[in-house]
């Protein structure tokens, strides 16, 4: 017998939920507590709890090594790492940041905090990301920065964007939050562009409680980022020209990041097993397809993204409502896209019909530490049930 036999068994119809515990689309990995305590012991013995203690310094070294980058500059969060990297890299006197609209919901706010104006470009319909080709039409005499963003599955067009940057002299920053473990044509993510930014909030590959960092091979840029992050104080302890803000990582969060770094290969394997389970279980359900990782490159398998095809019988919003009612916190993929949101600052865009169309089609399925292979089997079973019983679901007025 299946998990649901009748549409009245659906959570949305008041039936028992499939999951007692919420299954989210966040990674929420739990590192080894003993490793965390081991790193904690270092700062506890040193009696330094924030402001660049030995644990945070070790974390920066280990992250630089992990990404194959010359420098890693840590922050209390990815948000301010991005703001400061933009501030440092933006061409002086220029105002616009060329970036995708189909992306992280706060990214335009981050640009605004950096005192710059988002200029949204289209995304490639196959790759779901900014490419050299989609960015090019938005480059103009006001462009200060190109902001590449890796999509949730696979990487953005680094070759195309680096070529555009080289050709125009406009710096390239990459928001690499979703691609910590990946490689692009053999190059480790974190070692590309002028700089790359990462988050270590608990939903990301590295759960540091909270945190972020910027990697770069540019020593001068790393030095400027450190000054800006350390309250704008130069090596002499006096305020530097560039305005700064105290946004340093604390030692507890750094200890957590190190514990995650120690286990990252095991984490990738567990996420790959989840991805394999989805591949297996979704293969025979009509109308829904899994977004495939490019396994010719190193990938982390962190999130599960599915596309609803034209023959899927319900709208995405109706589908998500049914899943949510079973305690699956499924979310639409980057919807609404950023140019559709009302903000208190100016934004620039042209025709983004492709972005608007793509923003309707994808959804994120439960993944990460809290999701087992058995869970995935149940999720797939429910999706198959929805697909078969869509007419009855609509008839009953559930969606």
């Amino acid at each position, binding site marked *: 017998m299946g998990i649901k036999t009748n549409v009245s068994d659906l959570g949305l119809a008041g039936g028992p939920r499939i999951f007692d515990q919420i299954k989210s689309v966040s990674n*929420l990995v*739990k590192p080894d*507590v003993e490793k*965390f*305590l081991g790193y*904690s*012991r270092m700062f*506890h013995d040193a*009696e330094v*709890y*924030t*402001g660049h203690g030995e644990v945070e310094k070790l974390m920066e070294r280990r992250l630089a090594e992990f990404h194959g980058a010359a420098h890693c500059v840590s922050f*209390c*969060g*990815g*948000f*301010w790492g991005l703001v400061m990297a933009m501030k440092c890299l933006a061409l002086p006197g220029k105002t616009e940041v060329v970036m995708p609209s189909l992306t992280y919901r*706060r990214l*335009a*706010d981050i640009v*605004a*905090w950096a*005192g710059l104006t988002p200029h949204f470009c289209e995304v490639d319909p196959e790759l779901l990301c900014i490419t050299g080709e989609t960015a090019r039409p938005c480059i103009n005499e006001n462009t200060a920065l190109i902001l590449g963003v890796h999509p949730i599955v696979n990487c953005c067009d680094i070759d195309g964007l680096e070529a555009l940057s080289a050709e125009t002299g406009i710096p390239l920053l990459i928001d690499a939050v979703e691609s910590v473990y990946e490689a692009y044509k053999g190059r480790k993510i974190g070692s590309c562009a002028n700089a790359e930014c990462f988050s270590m*909030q*608990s939903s990301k590959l590295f*759960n540091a*409680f*909270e945190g972020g960092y910027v990697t770069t091979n540019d020593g001068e840029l790393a030095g400027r980022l450190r000054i800006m992050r350390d*309250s*704008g*104080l130069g090596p002499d*302890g*006096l*305020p530097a*020209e560039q*305005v*700064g*803000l*105290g*946004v*340093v990582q*604390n*030692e*507890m*969060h750094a200890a*957590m990041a190190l514990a995650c770094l120690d286990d990252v290969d095991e984490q990738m394997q567990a996420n790959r097993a989840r991805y394999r389970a989805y591949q297996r279980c979704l293969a025979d359900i009509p109308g829904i397809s899994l977004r495939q990782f490019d396994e010719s490159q190193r990938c982390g398998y962190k999130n599960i993204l599915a596309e609803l095809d034209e023959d899927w019988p319900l709208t995405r919003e109706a589908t998500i409502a049914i899943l949510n009612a079973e305690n699956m916190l499924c979310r639409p993929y980057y919807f609404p896209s950023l140019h559709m949101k*009302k*903000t*208190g*600052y100016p934004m620039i865009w042209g025709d983004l019909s492709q972005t608007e169309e793509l923003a309707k089609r994808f959804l994120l399925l439960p993944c990460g*530490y*809290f999701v087992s292979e058995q869970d995935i089997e149940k999720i797939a079973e429910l999706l198959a049930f929805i697909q078969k019983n869509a007419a009855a679901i609509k008839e009953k007025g559930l969606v």
Partner: protein
Amino acid sequence: MTTSTSLLSKTFAVKGGTPAFPSMQRLGQHYFPDWARYETAFRDIFARQYYTNHGPLAQRLEARAASYLGVRHAMCITNEAIALCLAAQALSLQGKVLVPAIAGMQLAQSLQWAGCEPVYCDIDLHTGMMDAQAARARLAAGDIVAILAADLFGSLADHAGLQAVADEFGLPLYFDACAAFGSTSGGRSRAGDGRLQVFSMQSSHVLSAGEGAFIVTDDDQLAAHVRNIRSNYGMGQVIVPVVKTSNGRFSEAQAAVALASFDDLDAHIARNQQLRQDYVAALSGLAGIEVLAPAGVDRSNGQSLMLRVDAAKFGLSGRQLIALLQAENVQAEPQVNAGFYRHDSRFGTSALPVADAWHDSLVELPLGSKTDGATVATIAALLAAAHAQAAGLATVLGAGR
């Protein structure tokens, strides 16, 4: 005291002698839960697997802080600098904002990141905090949109006087109260004064999350706005339009440490007050040295020990004394001096005579978890020796920074 006798003829490190302390005596409180409490708290977090974003410990901390301070809302934020940026954003400030010339540098910086321009105001001759009359004079000259005042040194600024000026001009007043947690006036906290206040829980403060801060207010609508900018968790039912969000999330790790710190708060304050008494006794009668008394409070959290140095009487200026102590492995540069407007080339030097005098005379001494009676006695003896040898030291030290 034997130490002081032997130190009077000491060869100071700036003259090639051995530093009085083998390692740096830090400014700031730096209390932290002992290992057993830390381990228990963090094993609990791992068992719960709730890591950040308005988790159960953060909610408990917010409730406890609000209750302790007697305010309707306390909202935990990543750190003080980000909390100040969020505050300016939540108050929808645009334009020039008055800040005290002596305060943490994050005041002016938060305004610049929020798209405002800091304008420096002179300070009160006796308290070192924003002077209501100087503020009034600057507001009368026009084009100021808000006042950001600071409670410093465990003292409380002239809240009533500043509020009267703000009301007269119809402008919002808010506070950086980073150094005032646990300080009271009239038997109660003044955390409800102004539109909102920002408290720091950075390691150097009496209530420590290792790193962290919170914003307090009695204004429900403003609280909703702050929560909405911070992240969209825990903001309740009220949705307020936001110009741009920031990320001010506060983790369960920070909350666990802050809750432990809360348990020890009274003991930390009592210890601060004992060490203050030790300093006052040991420094009494030393010419040109005034231990700054807490202002505007009936109880101070006692987290800072500040000196005013009268260069003519002591023989060295405050700047020279800081350089001398630093070489002896004693941190003595007040953090508030780093935010001083004279360092800021964008603003140039304007005539803020009281702030100028305070900057040149202000010295801070260690008063934290690692400071004990013996440390106090040694530092006091160093000061006595510095006074005795002042003439010879002044030439070595130059003007100081």
